[in-house]
């Protein structure tokens, strides 16, 4: 009898154990942990708070937020991709989408995007994230976008008794204003206030190429077009502002200062709209924004250079649906408008068109121009494969050579184009 009771108890215990085990396994199976990596460790607490909110809405999904400084971000992503241990969701730079897609690191998001109600989003920005070309699928999903705009220092215009730049204007008008606004204030024979700042980086250069009716590379990404026609004309216009007209400081003078406009010594410059926030905080003078001047080759057509900040999902994720849910949440109602203020615009229209985003009590007074300029974004060729090499390294370095007087314009442009062609040929 004792033995029977013992066996029965044993069976009961085993039953309970397995019952508990299976329940535990079910519970375990439902608990999903996603890794989310971004390149701005300064806002990690805000991102963690959003992750917590998402977790409250989806109790079975927990998000671990990791912040890696931008300088190390891509090396880390590359190493993780090689080891197939990429985070489930991570920030994606628009210029890296095609390269990463080509390498098979990114999940195709098109099936998810197809199910979205696109009227809630600024859909024109989506195209830039398609790969391998404008007809391809989306391999990243935007949460905000920015656009290049023209800034001017109101104090310097007022002091010179000049009208602020209009919304529709030309390169010649811009050059004339820049000449009038360049001054040698301390009388030492050198300018110490400049009408314009040619930074020689993508925000400046490529904006002018587009607004002269040209593009940097051909539609099939096979050929650099900078040494011919309207593209070359745009580069020459910018180079002349530094070399001939001397209305801009040289790259040597501005070395190491990425926001030279904040010194109050620059009357006009072209920059991404995200600088609105920087200039509010760091420029002592009032400033305004307008559209870029149009080049003679534009035919009056304005072409905005803008792009989104986006999320990508790892091709190796075990939880694609949950990763997409988190992405959709962060790119939609989940992301509070105060995380995309200044010159960034939420991809979620309700957020972007809200009074909170308009910030009517702050400069610039016409902030809605950012939205209007954004509606004119469309080119996909900008972010051709190999961008970190051909745009950031080769074009920037060689254009500096011209601006620093280290090489003849035609020779350097021809060399630059040849080098870029070689890069494009590898893809």
């Amino acid at each position: 009898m004792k033995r029977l009771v013992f066996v029965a108890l044993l069976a009961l215990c085993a039953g309970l154990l397995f019952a508990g085990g299976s329940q535990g396994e079910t519970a375990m199976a439902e608990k999903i942990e996603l890794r989310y990596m971004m390149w701005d460790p300064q806002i990690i607490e805000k991102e963690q708070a959003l992750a917590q909110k998402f977790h409250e809405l989806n109790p079975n999904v927990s998000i671990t937020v990791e912040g890696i400084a931008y300088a190390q971000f891509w090396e880390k992503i590359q190493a993780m991709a090689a080891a197939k241990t990429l985070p489930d969701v991570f920030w994606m730079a628009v210029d890296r989408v095609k390269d990463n897609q080509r390498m098979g690191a990114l999940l195709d998001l098109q099936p998810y995007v197809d199910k979205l109600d696109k009227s809630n989003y600024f859909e024109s920005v989506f195209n830039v994230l398609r790969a391998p070309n404008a007809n391809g699928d989306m391999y990243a999903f935007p949460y905000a976008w920015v656009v290049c705009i023209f800034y001017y220092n109101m104090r310097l215009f007022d002091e010179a008794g000049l009208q602020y730049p209009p919304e529709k204007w030309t390169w010649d008008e811009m050059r004339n204003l820049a000449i009038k606004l360049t001054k040698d204030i301390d009388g030492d024979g050198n300018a110490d206030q400049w009408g314009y700042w040619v930074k020689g980086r993508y925000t400046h250069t490529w904006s002018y190429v587009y607004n002269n009716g040209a593009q940097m590379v051909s539609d099939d990404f096979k050929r650099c077009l900078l040494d011919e026609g309207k593209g070359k004309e745009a580069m020459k216009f910018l180079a002349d502002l530094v070399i001939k007209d001397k209305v801009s400081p040289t790259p040597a003078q501005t070395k190491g200062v990425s926001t030279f406009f904040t010194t109050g010594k620059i009357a006009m410059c072209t920059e991404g709209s995200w600088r609105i926030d920087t200039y509010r905080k760091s420029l002592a003078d009032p400033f305004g924004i307008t559209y870029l001047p149009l080049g003679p080759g534009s035919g009056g057509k304005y072409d905005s250079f803008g792009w989104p900040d986006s999320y990508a999902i790892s091709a190796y994720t075990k939880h694609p649906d949950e990763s997409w849910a988190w992405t959709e949440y962060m790119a939609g109602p989940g992301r509070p408008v105060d995380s995309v203020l200044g010159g960034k615009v939420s991809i979620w229209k309700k957020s972007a068109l809200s009074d909170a985003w308009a910030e009517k009590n702050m400069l610039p007074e016409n902030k809605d121009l950012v939205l209007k300029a954004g509606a004119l974004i469309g080119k996909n060729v900008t972010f051709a494969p190999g961008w970190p090499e051909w745009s950031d390294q080769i074009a920037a370095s060689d254009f500096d050579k011209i601006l620093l007087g280290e090489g003849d314009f035609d020779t350097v442009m021809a060399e630059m184009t040849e080098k870029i062609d070689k890069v494009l040929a590898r893809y």
Partner: protein
Amino acid sequence: MAIKNLLGSTRFEKYVAPYIFILPMLVGLFVFRLGPVVWSFLLSFQKYNPFQGGAWIGLQNYKELLQDKDFHQVFFNTLKFTLMYLPLGVISSLILAVLVNNKLKGIVIFRAIYFLPVISAVAAVGTIWAWLLNPLFGLVNYLIKAVFGIIGPEWLGSPKTALFTLVLVNIWLTMGYAMVIFLAGLQGVPQELLDAAWVDGAGKVKRFFRIVLPLLSPTTFFVIIITIIRSFQIFDLVYIMTAPAAGEGGAVGGPANSTNVLVISIFLNAFSFYRMGYGAAQAYVLFLMVAFITFFQFRFQKRWVHYQ
């Protein structure tokens, strides 16, 4: 019992135990040093990216290096950096070591101060120097204008001065390290030789050049070798002082490629442009340069290095 016997046996202690003790080191050496050396050599003959694997392309990467004008500039930038840094770095460290090699009260504090940059974070040092040397707003040019009434150089801003500026900052950063080595060498110079020379009427300068310097030659030889290797491998300072801010766009090793050195180029090709094979080929060019120069140094050391 058998194990106990084995452990206690002389044969075990002689033939097995030593290898067990050095096993962790050997594993580290093969996995983290020799393995990558062999692997990167094989990579240099491939078109390789970590996502898609490699394809054998023979000597194509090396052929491209010979035709790549930017790489030629990188190669000569590295040589120029070494040629400037070697004499200036070694001489300034030696002068500093001679200056702190006396028995003044508080000299230890000076030695510590001169050594401080060596243990400072390169990122912090590079960033601060970049600000100090800013052509328009930097403290250095401000002082030059205030004291001499002239406009200072463009330092990192101009291709003509950028590489030399990096040499100067690197000397400031590393001088203390070689100073400590020279100091140890100086303190090993036998006092009786110096006294004998003094009795014979040799002045301070003569004693330094005729006695101290020759006796210091093994130390100098060591310092020269490590200085050359370090200068060929310069990376962090150049990266910190020339890389654009995050998201700004622009080239590392600027302006106009004038400070792009070998390790920067290897890093960019391998990790930014996903060209592991091309980067590995550049790494082997670096290896050959260092090996060639070090070989000749050892070969000709007998002519000027005097061991006591």
